[in-house]
């Protein structure tokens, strides 16, 4: 994986010093909260419901064991012993003190990590496929392109006060495991006539106005990638709406102009920028690529011993096909039954670090579904790995099942939330685990958001739940039919909302409709798409 050189280290260190100075000026009263807020946000520091929250960037979801250990140690030293992995492959600490924040950033910089641009109206952490560099079905490893974009977008002088936040995702497979088209810019690395290039989708997003990004360019040559991104951003910075926070995302600009007109403006700007020398030298991409070379894979057994049924279930659910047939990618579920989705203790982080070192060439990935991946595990080592995970309560065999739901922190932690998300997630996983229905339902993506900002991706859930505030009481809307994958679609609301108990019943009800109606190997989503909303509505409200 990528390693900093002196320049990367110097940039991060300069940022730590800058933030230390900003925090000092805030505490001395030289900066008002209004002036300080965007500065602290650009260093990942929020003021949340109970305390400051620090969001640490995990660029394209990749980290090594030393970094994971540092994350665990920070949880113990500065926080309350745990952290929360997010839907953008980052980590959040919930109980941070402003006076400690610069010290934490300094600790992070020692392991080549930072919290740069994890919030604020700037280009955020670049996300990617969690199986990048390992998946059997990828064209190339998308991470070198993501790293190139990371450096370009860090401290970008022109794009630090955009109309609104800006999220970029890079993938390189037909299968979309990163919700690529629900980003402000989604980039798919593709091959055309034997050349590798980038396909650009612009103007996707969730939030209160969910939109699927239209394609604006089917092929950008690799030596123009940064220039094209710069053109996309400049048109947005100049013309994105600034009169209304809720209409300020690029999706609204693209929607209001129309994809065609937006594309025309980007192409015009692109033609201009091509003469400005903004593209880094091509040798830089090649330099970055050397860091992502395959580890030294060895041939070994290609099948597992399935005599332990618990292990066999976990293998079936939680491993993913690797490009080397003696390896798999193994998913460590952070969704134990009744647990808090995405939370991990400092101790668990250190354990996962140890296992990564032992079994996965020192590599770890964070999934947007708030789980952890060991990308390169020898099939011969799988049982040993599983035994350790199982013993530590990290062996839940539930990837992509209803128990593997995404849930935002909700009203338990978030000052924007209208309702709690976590208790719903806990109760649903307990209920489906107890009834044994989880396995029968197969792939079923449940996504829960505690407010309209949709951090829990409810628009993209096969089943989505949105928490709202109804006269001071938590209320939940149910929606069906969303997908964040290559068959991307936006979920539709079933009808009137439910109480907390009511929505849990409702989830059970819609899964019963599916089980009664499904044909062959259909997933919940497939059945919904075939039979439509009516049968579900009938069962819910009939």
């Amino acid at each position: 994986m990528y390693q900093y050189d002196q320049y990367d280290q110097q940039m991060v260190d300069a940022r730590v010093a800058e933030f230390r100075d900003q925090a000092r000026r805030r505490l001395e009263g030289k900066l008002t909260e209004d002036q300080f807020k965007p500065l602290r946000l650009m260093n990942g520091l929020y003021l949340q419901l109970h305390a400051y929250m620090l969001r640490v960037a995990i660029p394209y979801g990749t980290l090594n064991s030393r970094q994971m250990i540092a994350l665990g140690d920070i949880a113990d030293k500065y926080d309350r012993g745990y952290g929360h992995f997010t839907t953008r492959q980052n980590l959040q600490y919930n109980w941070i003190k402003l006076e400690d924040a610069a010290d934490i950033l300094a600790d992070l910089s020692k392991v080549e990590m930072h919290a740069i641009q994890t919030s604020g109206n700037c280009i955020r952490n670049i996300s990617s496929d969690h199986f990048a560099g390992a998946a059997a079905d990828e064209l190339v490893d998308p991470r070198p392109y993501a790293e190139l974009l990371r450096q370009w977008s860090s401290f970008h002088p022109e794009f630090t006060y955009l109309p609104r936040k800006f999220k970029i995702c890079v993938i390189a497979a037909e299968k979309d495991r990163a919700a690529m088209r629900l980003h402000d810019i989604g980039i798919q690395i593709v091959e055309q006539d034997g050349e590798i290039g980038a396909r650009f989708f612009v103007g996707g997003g969730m939030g209160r106005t969910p939109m699927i990004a239209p394609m604006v360019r089917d092929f950008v040559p690799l030596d123009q990638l940064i220039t094209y991104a710069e053109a996309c951003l400049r048109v947005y910075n100049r013309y994105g709406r600034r009169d209304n926070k809720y209409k300020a995302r690029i999706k609204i600009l693209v929607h209001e102009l129309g994809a065609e007109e937006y594309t025309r403006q980007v192409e015009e700007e692109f033609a201009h920028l091509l003469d400005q020398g903004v593209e880094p030298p091509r040798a830089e991409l090649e330099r970055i690529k050397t860091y992502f070379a395959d580890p030294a894979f060895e041939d070994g057994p290609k099948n597992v011993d399935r005599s332990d049924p618990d292990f066999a279930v976990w293998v079936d659910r939680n491993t993913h096909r690797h490009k080397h047939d003696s390896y798999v990618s193994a998913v460590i579920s952070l969704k134990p039954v009744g647990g808090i989705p995405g939370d991990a203790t400092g101790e668990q982080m250190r354990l996962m670090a140890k296992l990564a070192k032992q079994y996965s060439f020192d590599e770890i990935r964070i999934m947007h579904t708030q789980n952890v991946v060991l990308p390169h595990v020898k099939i011969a080592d799988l049982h040993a790995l599983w035994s350790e995970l199982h013993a530590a309560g990290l062996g839940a065999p539930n990837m992509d099942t209803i128990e593997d739901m995404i849930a935002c922190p909700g009203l338990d932690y978030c000052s924007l939330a209208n309702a709690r998300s976590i208790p719903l997630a806990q109760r649903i996983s307990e209920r489906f685990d107890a009834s044994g229905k989880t396995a029968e339902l197969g792939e079923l993506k449940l996504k829960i958001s505690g407010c309209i900002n949709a951090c829990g991706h409810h628009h993209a859930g096969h089943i989505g739940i949105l928490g709202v505030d109804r006269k001071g009481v938590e209320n939940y809307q149910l929606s069906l039919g969303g997908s964040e994958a290559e068959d991307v679609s936006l979920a539709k609301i079933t009808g009137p909302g439910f109480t907390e108990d009511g929505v849990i019943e409702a989830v059970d009800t819609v899964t019963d409709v599916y089980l009664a109606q499904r044909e062959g190997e259909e997933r919940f989503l497939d059945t919904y798409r075939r039979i439509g909303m009516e049968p579900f509505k009938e069962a819910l409200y009939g």
Partner: protein
Amino acid sequence: MANTDLGTSPDDVQFRFREDEMADHGAVTVDAVLEQSNASAVRIEPGDDARLLLPFLDRLALVEVNFPSFADGRGYSVARILREAGYEGELRAVGDVLIDQLSHMRRCGFDSFAPDKRLDEEDAKRAFATWDDVYQRSVDGRTTIPELRHE
């Protein structure tokens, strides 16, 4: 509105990275530049299209870019667009210009600064010097980190 009393006065300029004489012409609006031919100083507001000025760059000695709020980043694109088009006159950031925006403004081509409220000199000096090296090519002519790596 009178065309001559829109802009800042030379006294408002706190930082200036130019050797030439400071223009003392009052700045006019972008519309005024388009309509009349003799103005040599213009003031750009966030909603203005800076590219409309490109035919007139030769006779402009001062361009003021107004930041009514530091959080409105359109002025950064304005600055780069003018410099990319070859504008060499004074490019002045005016309005809600604060310490922590100085380094980026400088990178986008601003070479003079007239903040609404005078800034702490020491803090500003540190802010201008925040980045020893930079990742992106911009109009400040700095050699970028990717370039330094492959020299």
